Each structure stands twice: as structure tokens, then as C-alpha cells.
């Protein structure tokens, strides 16, 4: 009950007064625990002009457990897995750093600022992080290519993240795996 009330409040807040450059919708009106977020690429970043889809999955015991947020649109970014899963590496979203008082709104805002300013020191994609650090021009070129290839038009939320169900543990795994590569 508690989480229902809180989620509906947060949803109302996010739909009435959406975070900058975002639009929130529910894929299924009767399920408040799954949100679809449409995020405009911030104009001051390499992702401007792109439109990205985000899955937000709130666990049953939200806000005590971390919400899971993944990109449904592929994105070339040091902190997002470069695959269909679209897992995000964000301090706020790590289970050991999650605070029940954090709102989804602030998480979404953090993701948006992650697009403006990637965090190459804590990467999921080590190669992209290197490129970001050492060859910024190449990185921006690649990011723009991805935007034109994947992030044009309205984002598709088809690829229901079956992998994301594995939870944020999966995020940690994939990051270590990728770093080993």
C-alpha cells in the first residue's frame, strides 16, 4: 500500500511537471510499476537531436529497493552497455548506495546529466570510456552515428528488458565482463 501511494504520487508529479526534456507514460495503466520514459538528447551533448527510450521498473518493495532503469534505445555512452539491454551505471542506482528517500525524478535527472557529462572513470564500456578520454572527436562522431542510426523518431519500447529482470546485479557482472575484454 505504501509503495502504491508513493508511486502514484511520484507518477502524478512526473507527468504534471515532467523533468526537463522528458515525457513519462505507462505502458499498462493498471501497472504503476512499469514506466516508459522518453528522453530528448540534451542539446549541449553529443546526443542532441536523438530521442531515447528508458524503461523504469519499480520493484514491489520500492522505495526500499532500487528501481531498475535501462535504455531501450541503443546509445553510445561509456556508462551504458552497448547492447540491447541498455544497463546504466549510475551511483544512485547501485543497491548499496540507494536511499529510500530518493525520488525517481532525481534519478531521471541524474541520467540526463550523465548524457551531458559521461563518467569515464566508472565505465561499463571501457573502450568507449577510453575513447571519450583520449579521442573526444572520434567519440562524438561515433555517438552521433548511433543517434542517427537508432535514436531518430519516437523511441520503441518493444524490447521488454528480459535481461533487466536479472536486476542490478547483472549490471555489475556485465561491467566486469566488459572490462576484462
Amino acid at each position, binding site marked *: 500500500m505504501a509503495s502504491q501511494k508513493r508511486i502514484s504520487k511520484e507518477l502524478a508529479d512526473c507527468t504534471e511537471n515532467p523533468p526537463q526534456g522528458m515525457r513519462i507514460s505507462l505502458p499498462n495503466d493498471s501497472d504503476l510499476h512499469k514506466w516508459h520514459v522518453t528522453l530528448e538528447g540534451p542539446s549541449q551533448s553529443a546526443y542532441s537531436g536523438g530521442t531515447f527510450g528508458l524503461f523504469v521498473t519499480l520493484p514491489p*518493495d520500492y522505495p526500499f529497493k532500487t528501481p531498475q532503469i535501462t535504455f531501450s534505445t541503443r546509445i553510445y555512452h561509456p556508462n551504458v552497455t552497448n547492447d540491447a539491454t541498455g544497463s546504466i551505471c549510475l551511483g544512485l542506482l547501485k543497491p548499496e548506495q540507494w536511499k529510500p528517500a530518493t525520488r525517481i525524478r532525481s534519478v531521471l535527472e541524474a541520467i540526463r546529466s550523465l548524457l551531458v557529462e559521461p563518467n569515464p572513470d566508472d565505465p561499463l564500456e571501457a573502450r568507449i570510456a577510453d575513447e571519450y578520454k583520449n579521442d573526444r572527436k572520434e567519440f562524438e562522431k561515433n555517438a552521433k552515428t548511433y543517434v542517427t542510426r537508432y535514436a531518430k523518431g519516437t523511441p520503441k519500447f518493444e524490447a521488454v528488458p528480459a535481461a533487466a529482470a536479472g536486476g542490478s546485479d547483472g549490471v555489475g557482472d556485465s561491467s566486469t565482463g566488459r572490462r576484462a575484454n
Partner: protein
Amino acid sequence: MPPPNTPEEGMPAQGSLPRRISGEVFPERTRRPRPRVPTPPTSAPATVPPPAPSSVPRPPSGRASPTSDDPNADNILAIDHQALEYTDPVDETLQCPICRTPFYKPVTTKTCGHTFCSPCLHRALELQPVCPIDRQPIDKSRDLGQTRVILDQLDRLKVKCPNKGCDHISSRDRLAAHYERYCDYTLVRCPDANCTMAIARMDAKPDAGCLHKDSECQYCNKTVVIADLEAHYDNDCSGHTAKCPHCSAIVVRHRMEKHIANDCPEAEIPCKSHTYGCPFRNKRRLIEQHEQNGCIHATIGKLAMGRLEDRMMINDLKNRIASLDARVRRTEQRQATVPSIPSTIPGSRASFVAGGNGASDFIPDLDDLRAGAAGMAPGPAGAGSPEDYMLAQFERMESQMEDLRKMVRDMDGHHSMRLLNDTMVLNDQITELTGKVNVLNMHTTWLMGIQRRELQMRAAGGAAGGEAHGGPRPGPSSANPNSGGGVSLAGSSSADGSGNGGGGGHSSRERSGSISGLSVSQRQHQHGEGMVPSLGMGLGQGRGENPPRL
């Protein structure tokens, strides 16, 4: 809007009371095997204790024992405070950052001062023993406390009763009393001691027996609990609607009788005037026509009704007359005892007012008055009252007059006192000001004198010595040869009565300061003693330094 049966039902179950009003089952009761049929109409199908381990019988938590036979005592499900609806928007600062509802049993951390609902915080602490806002470590047993102010503010919030159908609004601290004791919609334990189900208080009559027994739906042969039959007919029953046999409208089946009796246009009903003997019976829509066309019995009915009304009015009037009679009798009785009183009062008054006139002179007048009053107003007031009344009035007015007189006197005294006070101050100020003006006058004449003398001096010096002083500030040396003239001038100015020669010698700013500092009396004192020496000194200085200028 939220789905009725979501998995997060597990939340309230942890160790706390079942915090759900829509819950239908009292979990701590011995459960009877029951067919799985959706229970109360609107809410979730019996979803009680979730699949969490907490569904195991809980330790006795002060709730009713299963054998309790008092149907109202503590058989009530606790209020879900987080689901309460508030009449006004609640300030953000009074809301728990975890559940985003106004605090319920607020606790404040002693380390960082953050406040949460007690259940929310404990839940969060179970996962991680840190503050859910700033992650400061928290020890459950030491670091938590309550804040009185927050509690008081919360108590004053206005909430709606959580029961469906009840529109009671109260402050939050009184909600529990309404909900637990008075609200008819509160779910209480079924009066049957063997039943675990809940039922609205208004339906739970001790003699009604258990309403959770199964019964068969008469239309669809489903097994339904008695308490839910109504809702079943309205919503679920597969054959819940039927065609009206008369008008072939689709009607909810168990409301058919009502429909036929009240609404159906094709059902045959008697004329409204059948109580007056109209034998006409027809379909409802035709009955209306019959009545419009003028049912003879309707006219008779009207007359009969009129007569009935008349009779009722007559009865009413009779009653009123009887009560008036009684009143008249009462006043008459009182009147019989009254006359002795006025004769004593006027007596005393007569001697008081008329002085020489005896009481015997006054009483006949009063009798006249009484007769006159009785003639004028033969009402139920009684004959003794007019003079009583007038005397009382007179007395009251007199006392009022006396009051007023006193008040005017007081005011007058007050006023003159104030006037005196004010004018005294003003007078003082005026004398002081005139004194100051005089002083200033003297100063100007004295200064003018100096100026004049200086001009003369310059003219004389220019003529005699041929020494030219172009500047406006003649040097001290230029004054030296004429020191004798200066002394004589000093003498003349002292004859003018200027007491402030000493001040006059200094710079103008200093002088004004010394003047304003002096009071009239002081100045007068100076006139007598210090005048000449100070003047002489001042002049000496005035010559030694720059001469004062206006």
C-alpha cells in the same frame, strides 16, 4: 485505480498490524475452510496475509481473542494511515520522504534530525541501518525520538473517514474514535463467533447470525456468501439482468419487483384514487391519461382530502384554544396574588418622590392607571403588570440617568484634567521658546554691532594708515591699534544686556551649541554674575582670533 491485488501487499505485513481497512479477514482467527468465492463486492478477493512468512499466526498483539463475544470491542481492523485521504493538501514538510504521505507515528533521528513514519523507517533500517536521506549510521535503540510539534501538527490535519460510503471528516487525532466506535461502515467481525470474516457494523446485528454462510444464487446457481448476494446480483451474476415481462426493458433481475411497482410503464396498476373507491385499473401510462381526463374519484378524493385537512386544522385550533385558556387561567390566578405588591412599592416611591404627599394620595392614581391599562390592553398580561412595568421602567431610566450624569461628570473632570496637563506643558514650552528668541535677538544685535564696528574700523584704518586689507578676514595685527575702541564697545554691548558674550567670541557652531544648552533660568543667573568677565574674555579672544561672522 491501482490493481486490487498487487504483490506489494507484503509490505504492511511485516511485524506490524494488518494495516488495511479493505481487508476482509481477521487473520488471527482460526480459519474455517471456505469455498473460494470472491468475498466483499468491490475490493480484493480474499488476499489476506501475503505469501510472506508473516502469514504465520502472529504473537498476540492486543487484538481480540477468538472467543470474545463482544462484537464491537476490538474486532476492528486497524486504519491504514497511509491510505487516508486529507481534505486539504498537506505541506511537503509534514510528509514522510519514504512513503510520501503525511507522517504516521513520526520518529526523528537524533543524529541527523530527519523524520520518517515509524513503519517506513524501521523497514528501511532492516535493509540498511543508515538514515534513508543522508546515510548516517543509525542505531534503532538509541538514535530515534519523537517531536511533539510534528505530532501536534499532524493531529490537526483534517481527514476523511477511510470507510467507503462514509463522508465523515474529522481531525486526524479523532479519526480513530469515529472509526472504531461510531462509523456504521467500519468492518467489524462477523457476529458469528466461528466466522473469521468482517462485515459492516450496520449489518452486524447480533441476531442476524453469520452473513458469510454460503447461499446459492437463485439465478445462476453459483455459491455466494449471503453478505455479498446483493452485489453479486448487481454485478457478477451471469443471469443478473432480465427482460421486464411488461415493458421488455432490460432490468437487473432482483430489482425487477421494484421496477414493476414503481417505474414500468406497461405494468398494470390501480388508479391513484383507488382508496376513494375508483375501480379503474390499467397500465401505468394509461393511468396517467385516466387521471388527466378527470377521474371522478379523484375529485371526490380531493374533497375528502380537503375535509381531512379542515378537520386537522380544526383540531389544531382546538388545541391552541385549550392552551390559551390554560394560560389565561394561570395569569388570572397570578393576578389574584399580585395587587398587594404594587401598593407597597408606590407607597415608598410616593413618599420619596412627592415628599409631603402621603401614600394614600398616590395609590388612587395608580388604580386609575391600572384601570386605564386594563381598558387599553385587555390581553393576557393581567392588570397588575402595567404599573409594575412602568414603575420598573421609570426606576430603570432614573438609574440610567444617574449613571449618565456620573459619566458626564467623570468625563468633564477627566477632560479638564487633560486640558490642564496639556496646556501646562505647552505654556512651559512657549516661555522657553520666547526666552530663546530673546537670546537670539540679543545675539544678532551684538553681532551686528561688531560688524558695524569692524567696518568703521576698517574705514578709519584705511584712511589713517593707508594700509589696505583686501581680504574679508582682517588679520589680528590690524585690530591691535584699536584695542581701546574694542573695550568701549564691549561695555556698550554689556549695557545691552547680552549675557552670551563669551559664546559669541568662539566659532559660530560652538556658540549655537552653548545657547541651546542653556535654559532661561540659567541665563538669568548668568546675567547677574559672569557677564562682564566672560564678555571681556570673549572680546579678547574675538580680537585675537578670527572675528565671528554672520
